[in-house]
């Protein structure tokens, strides 16, 4: 019999709003902070100065993971190397690639920026989340044309089945200029019965992804 896993929580960041477990928890007030990401950071009072050094893709991913994992104390339930991270997007790190390219465009006066260059890889967002949360488990970043729930389901299920991890943060973290969205799922082998939990299956991933907020 096939092993069933649980989506114990999820969060969506889209259209300048944040939804956690199906409830809206934040909406951007343009009259306040100039940046949606900074406004969200302050709203959740994150106290993590490294945030400001990150590129926008990492800020988005880190904030989404903070919303998903708040007050969950994941590391009390699982050792760090049992928590996996499987993320995907279509744009890779194009937003930062552009910024970095600008710093090397003028041959006579170019000053390649090391702090921008280190973010010109899609998977650094996994690194930043892992550093913050102290997750040491398996992680991969897939580049897909669009969110692919079947693919994500297969990849996460395989590593849960294999026993490599007991819990996985997975989903879609996409950013290109002003267009950004993040949908993250917390998938576990088992979870206490609570509102909003669901069976981990492609249809459910897709349904959550399409939620209007």
């Amino acid at each position, binding site marked *: 019999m096939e092993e069933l896993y649980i989506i114990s929580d999820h969060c969506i960041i889209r259209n300048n709003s944040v939804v956690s477990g199906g409830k809206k928890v934040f909406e951007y007030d343009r009259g306040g902070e100039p940046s949606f990401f900074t406004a969200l950071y302050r709203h959740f009072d994150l106290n993590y100065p490294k945030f400001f050094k990150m590129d926008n893709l990492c800020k988005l991913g880190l904030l989404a993971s903070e919303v998903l994992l708040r007050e969950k104390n994941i590391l009390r339930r699982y050792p*760090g*190397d049992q928590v996996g*991270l499987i993320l995907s997007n*279509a744009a*890779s790190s*194009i937003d930062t*690639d*552009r910024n*970095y*390219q*600008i710093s*090397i*465009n003028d*041959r006579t006066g*170019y000053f*390649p*920026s*090391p702090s921008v*260059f*280190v*973010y*010109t*890889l*899609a*998977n*650094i*967002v*996994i*690194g*930043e989340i*892992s*550093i913050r*949360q*102290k*997750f*040491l*488990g*398996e*992680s*991969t*970043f*897939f*580049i*897909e*044309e669009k969110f692919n729930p079947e*693919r994500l389901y*297969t*990849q996460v299920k*395989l*590593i849960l*089945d*294999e026993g*490599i991890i007991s819990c996985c943060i997975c989903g879609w973290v996409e950013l290109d200029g002003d267009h950004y969205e993040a949908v993250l799922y917390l998938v576990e082998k088992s979870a206490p019965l609570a509102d909003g939990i669901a069976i981990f299956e492609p249809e459910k991933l897709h349904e959550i992804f399409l939620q209007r907020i």
Partner: protein
Amino acid sequence: MQHKVVVTGIGIISAIGFDTKGVMDSLQAQRSGIGRLSLIDSVYKDEIPVAEIKATNDELLQIADPGITGNYSRTSLLGIIAARQAIAAARIDVSAPGRTGLISATTVGGMDRSEIFYRGYLSGSGKARLRDVVTHDCGDSTEKIADCTGIRDYITTINTACSSSANAIMVGARLIREGKLDRVVAGGTDALTLFTLNGFNSLMILDRNPCRPFDEDRNGLNLGEGSGFLVLESEEFACRENKNVLGVIKGYGNACDAYHQTASSPEGHGACLSMLKALEVAGLAPDAISYINAHGTGTKNNDLSEGVALETVFQAGIPHCSSTKSYTGHTLGAAGGIEAVLSIIALQHQWIYPNLNFARPMNELGFVPVTAFVTGIPVNCIMSNSFGFGGNNSTLIFSRY
């Protein structure tokens, strides 16, 4: 039911050879591919050695012979060449029954052409051609390889920095093991670009001389380019078609270092975890490993971190170990794939590669890498490490069939 995953084909193009035979000749002759940058117009031409494939994009197009008109970045041409070699070596007919996947990895994607486009575009001269930017996405090279090889059942792209193609092989092996696919062409490709040359230079981790992995006086890495692919099949599938089996994917492991965006932790925590996981999946003790193809970039940070991790995992003594990046340079996203091909060659021919340019052991470590081209001793199990920025650490274990 879990399926044994075997390797039935290999393909490679790198600075030390345009195919498996060319690469083998260079390996035996201890001929490194590291030299002067000649095909890209960079201010660092005479300053920073690289492992460049001495062929223009037009020449690569002739070799790749994709058969489909289109726009091809250097990265995709290298990938097509290596993937096709692997498929031909494995005698794969993708139209025959069986579910075939392509898992390719790249970090640079079509950046070699995008950076030309962008410069022209920003100058406002009207000289920028849109066709130079349509190949930018990481997924483009994968799609081009899929189009040229006819693979349709499962196609995806992985980008996890320098562990990308090792992860592609791991994901491919897992899909076969669990019966989701019958065969997978897995590996990666990356081309040299001004983008990466300047980026790594700004991090001050490029050696102005040929790199010296694990040497006390090492001073950084040399960038390289190339592509390496394996054809993986389930054992039943391979036997059914009477394939020549080159090796087995015995184990694999991936872990996060969770320390810094680009530097590795001093105790090599993530590296230890990935090696231990791979051994666990393989069901092997450390003393079963005959040879370690290390990540060994030649940077102060990696080689110390990896060295400490090796000493932690191999407490009874580190087996023969070397980095082949002193031959091929650091090929970034393609490194895992290229080094997987070198590992399979080593298993087939019972070779152990020298760690070129080595002179002085590191003060902090007890081990000394292999410095001669070794033959005549049994090589049954090879461990290959690939550690990427973002703390993404991967280890593969290959064994004889």
